[in-house]
């Protein structure tokens, strides 16, 4: 099952518990618009190459649609649609005035030069500028797209529609980006970790964390948990992992990664495989790499009491069932990693108002949003006796549903 199929599976599970009926289910699951384009560019060597590009706009009942743009060889329409719907539920869980969208270009960015990526990005904007915009659909960074790509999108869109920084988020700080955007997802995880640990009678101080993935989310999460007094007992990236039951020296680990580009070979612990991190002896497991890494086999061996989904869809629905039976608390992606889109929203708000917030304001507003969302999901979970994931979907369906009913179809 792909992560897109898994998202739909969780949506259906919640919709059936709520008993919304087949036609309402279809209404909520079906995308508003799917744009498919052929993006042709001239490569540096003069060859012409054509790439497939997609933008799927899932739902706009709650506001302009929001979602990342990814560059990846595996991008396809189904996957983009599933991820677009995930954004609808995610923005609803954290109560942002947004709907959901997602886009992608089927390409291997490692094989393209910076100039070629720029041409590809600008050409894609040429083809979709009619359907995006600050009050329609606001792209943001995703797999293999960075602040520079966002800057090109802003520039190209502005050539058609006039100066429009709010058309895209995740921009560089020097070009209408927001302070705190880069650490936003990790900050969100930090706030959720504080809340859930308090709920189970613990605190971050002394809690043992295992983090799979040491990119934007995993590395910052390790640093923030460490700052709160947590012990990072295992980390890994695509090249390998390292573990230390007494806790890794996080600042030294960062120095190592800065020098070597990977956590592998860090001498402050014993080497381990990427998979070992998932089953490490710890209190909180944070899968923050890619989707589908925790399947039913892994789930049976997970030793953590709490799983924080830093990535989108790291646990398969089968694994989710096992966690439910075993009493392992899973904080779902649409809540746990919603810090990223929340600060994207703050960036958009600053752009729309032509103001700049200090990082403290971004952090405190983010904390408020994450706490409120966690509180609401927890409330549904306790009163309805449902797992956190189902509760989050119930909350999302409720919010999107209310907006849909009030606006009329």
């Amino acid at each position, binding site marked *: 099952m792909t992560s897109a199929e898994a998202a739909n599976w969780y949506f259906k599970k919640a919709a059936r518990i*709520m*008993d*919304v*009926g087949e*036609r*309402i289910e279809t209404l909520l699951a079906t995308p508003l618009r799917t744009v498919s384009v052929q993006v042709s560019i001239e490569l540096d060597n003069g060859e012409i190459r054509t790439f497939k590009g997609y933008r799927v706009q899932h739902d706009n009942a709650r506001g302009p649609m929001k979602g990342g743009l990814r560059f990846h060889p595996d991008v396809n329409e189904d996957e983009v649609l599933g991820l677009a719907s995930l954004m609808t539920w995610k923005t609803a869980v954290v109560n942002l005035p947004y709907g959901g969208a997602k886009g992608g270009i089927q390409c291997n960015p490692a094989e393209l030069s910076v100039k070629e990526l720029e041409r590809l990005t600008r050409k894609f904007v040429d083809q979709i500028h009619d359907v995006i915009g600050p009050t329609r659909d606001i792209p943001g960074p995703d797999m293999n797209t960075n602040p520079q790509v966002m800057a090109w999108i802003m520039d190209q869109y502005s050539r058609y529609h006039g100066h429009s920084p709010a058309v895209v988020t995740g921009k560089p700080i020097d070009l209408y980006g927001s302070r705190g955007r880069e650490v936003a997802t990790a900050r969100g995880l930090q706030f959720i970790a504080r809340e859930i640990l308090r709920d189970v009678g613990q605190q971050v101080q002394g809690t043992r964390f295992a983090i799979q993935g040491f990119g934007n989310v995993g590395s910052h999460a390790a640093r923030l948990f460490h700052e709160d007094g947590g012990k990072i007992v295992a980390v890994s990236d695509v090249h390998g992992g390292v573990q230390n039951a007494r806790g890794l020296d996080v600042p030294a680990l960062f120095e190592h990664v800065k020098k070597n580009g990977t956590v592998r070979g860090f001498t402050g612990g014993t080497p381990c495989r990427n998979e070992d991190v998932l089953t490490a002896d710890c209190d909180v497991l944070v899968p923050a790499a890619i989707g589908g890494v925790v399947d039913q086999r892994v789930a049976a061996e997970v030793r953590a009491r709490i799983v924080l989904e830093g990535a989108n869809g790291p646990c398969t629905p089968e694994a989710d069932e096992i966690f439910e039976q075993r009493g392992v608390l899973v904080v779902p992606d649409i809540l746990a990693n919603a810090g990223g889109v929340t600060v994207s929203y703050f960036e958009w708000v600053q752009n729309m108002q032509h103001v700049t917030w200090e990082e403290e304001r971004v952090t405190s507003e983010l904390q408020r949003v994450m706490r409120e969302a966690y509180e*609401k999901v927890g409330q549904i979970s306790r009163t309805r006796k449902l797992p956190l994931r189902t509760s989050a979907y*119930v*909350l999302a369906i*409720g*919010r999107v*549903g*209310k907006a849909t*009913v009030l606006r*009329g*179809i």
Partner: protein
Amino acid sequence: MSIPASLLKKLVQIPIFQGLTVPEAAEFFEVALEQVIEKGRTVFREGDEGDALYVILSGEALVTKKGVELAVLSTHAVLGEMCLVSPGDTRSATAVAKTELSMLKIPSRRVQKLIRGNNLATLKVVANLAQVMGQRLAAINDRLVAADSKKKPDARKEELADFAGILNRWSF
């Protein structure tokens, strides 16, 4: 009254009298009375005791129920036939002469007596009546289905309202 054979031959073509031989029809209609009702007069009212059945010989009758027009009946149509199978029941509709009406009236008491005496002609009439009622029931069912499908646009509205109800019960 004695009814001319030419009229009896026409009467046995009416659905509820079909299958009667002319002598059988003569026997059945032996006690019939000819009645002429002026335009605008009432033949019977909804709620009256059903004491007779009528066959229209000429003219038109308007049948209504609670003020709603059900049918306009004309020559050789039968009125009040329900009293054959459920004697003593009240009239389920009102019949008014739309034009001057000439009708044959057969008292229900007389028909009940014939049934009790196993009169073949009367039993044939009752069997025909059962068939006619079956056809009417089928027609009513079709109209119910048609009326129900006309309501479809409303059903969607209710579905959205139902959804709103679900959302309220989950109280977000």
